């Protein structure tokens, strides 16, 4: 079985994330890493591989030069090979254009399962799996907290807003998993060493037959007009509880704000 895991290189959420003058996310001036939520996708891909002998896991990313770090991390975790689509024209792409590039790259790879995380930790839209399924014409089996696969039949548990559902589909399909699907493994020393010898290809837009005019900031179907840093919250009163004084002070505060 061939599994393609789509991963994203994102600015570290604990760093000072900010925007560039053109209102795009600064992806170069801030330390980046493999999106935490994509680690779950890599983990589930590796587990599927381990349960299905002869399977291969390919990690795919679209992003700037540094994004290769996200692919390397996944290779260290145990993926077999990597593909990094990098092209200056891609910078500033919206989710729709990104999904176009991903879809064209997936088409060039053998794929039974296209695995994704639930959302990126920077854009957090959570739409790329659905966009990919639509573009590839594949079943969308998304937001799994539990994944089971027998032969080509996939079943997931999906915890929705109003119900918990069991969703089933037949591969080839697009599968996305949540952070409830199980802790991602850490790369072992052996894994880190082995990753250095794993194949890692770099593709440009022309390799995919995508025209530069279809992607990037100027081709985006949405426009960010303005970005504003929210003023930091100012710390209010902090009291230390002594023999019930904390509860009284808390009730007093809530009453003063008319919550009681």
């Amino acid at each position: 079985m061939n599994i393609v895991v789509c991963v994203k290189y994102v600015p570290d959420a604990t760093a000072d994330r900010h925007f560039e003058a053109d209102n795009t996310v600064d992806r170069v001036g801030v330390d980046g890493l493999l999106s935490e939520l994509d680690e779950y996708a890599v983990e589930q891909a590796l587990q599927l591989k381990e349960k299905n002998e002869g399977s291969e896991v390919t990690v795919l990313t679209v992003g700037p030069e540094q994004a290769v770090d996200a692919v390397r991390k996944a290779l260290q975790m145990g993926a077999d090979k990597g593909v990094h689509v990098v092209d200056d024209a891609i910078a500033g792409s919206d989710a729709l254009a990104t999904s176009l590039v991903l879809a064209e790259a997936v088409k060039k790879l053998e794929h039974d399962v296209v695995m994704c995380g639930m959302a990126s930790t920077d854009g957090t839209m959570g739409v790329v799996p659905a966009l990919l399924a639509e573009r590839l014409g594949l079943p969308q089996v998304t937001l799994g907290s539990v994944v089971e696969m027998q032969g080509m039949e996939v079943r997931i548990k999906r915890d929705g807003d109003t119900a918990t559902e069991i969703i089933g589909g037949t591969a080839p399909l697009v599968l996305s998993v949540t952070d409830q699907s199980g802790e991602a493994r850490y790369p072992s020393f052996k894994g880190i060493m082995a990753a250095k010898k794993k194949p890692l290809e770099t593709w440009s837009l022309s390799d995919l037959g995508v025209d530069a005019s279809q992607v990037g900031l100027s081709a985006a179907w949405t426009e960010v007009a303005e970005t504003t840093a929210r003023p930091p919250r100012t710390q209010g009163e902090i009291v230390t509880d002594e023999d019930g004084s904390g509860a009284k002070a808390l009730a007093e505060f809530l009453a003063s704000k008319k919550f009681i």
Partner: protein
Amino acid sequence: MSEILVLVDHVDGAVRKTTNELLTIARRLGEPSAVFIGSPSDDAVAGLKGFGAEKIYIVSADDDSAFTSYLVAPKAEALAQLVEKVGPGAVLISSSAEGKEVAARLAVKLESGLITDAVDVQAEDGAPVTTQSVFAGSYTVQAKVTKGTPIITVKPNAATPEQAEGAGAVEQVPVTISDAAKAAKIVASEPRKATGRPELTEAAIVVSGGRGTGGNFEPVEKFADSLGAAVGASRAAVDSGWYPHSFQVGQTGKTVSPQLYVAAGISGAIQHRAGMQTSKTIVAVNKDEEAPLFELVDFGVVGDLHKVLPAATEEVTKRKG
């Protein structure tokens, strides 16, 4: 004035509050039309009309089970057919997991720009301009769609629902659903159990518990009940199996923006702050005075939640008389 389509968010015919918020927003942009996929009750139709729906499209397929038996894709196909028929000025959808996925597929079908998770939508020169809260609430972004029919998903509480009687003209819309859209089958579905408390994303007050509860949520729940609040949980509490995932507040759970957010025994990792940072008033109770969440609070109590919350519950109950 152009027609603004609002996809009705309903559970087995019961319309959710977010739909009324979307209809209220739609009135700023044009003439609201409600799109009901399924069979609405008379009450549901009256409700949509009462929040300003000029038209109510009732969408049905030859095989009506297409919408309830398969995930997302049939709804996107149905909406695309309706959009092509009426040529609306925008499509508004609730920012639920399903709503965002329907919107995504619709955007590809219509070659239209997509904006998700709007916390506000206003009209500017007749076109929608959205506001989103990004980077764990540390930035706000204003955006607009520049191609095709704007497709916008809107977060709960983005607007206060305002009643306004619309014409509510009902129109039946038959659609065809392709076999390809019936590929991800809903094999089983178990509705969430009612807690008797307000819906987490809709509540005016939320009381959340974290690692500091040690697995005992009783003080959190009792304090919440004294305030008429919803109960939330941090990821640490959910991962420990202390509280169901559907109550998780944070990046990978629910984003809440209530009038009052009380965090009990929650240290305040960036992932948690992402889900509650835009709350109007923030209160924390934590044994650890170094907890990062204290930096954000309007009021904080350094103390053991197992002592502070029960005593505070008593105080609140007494004051409410």
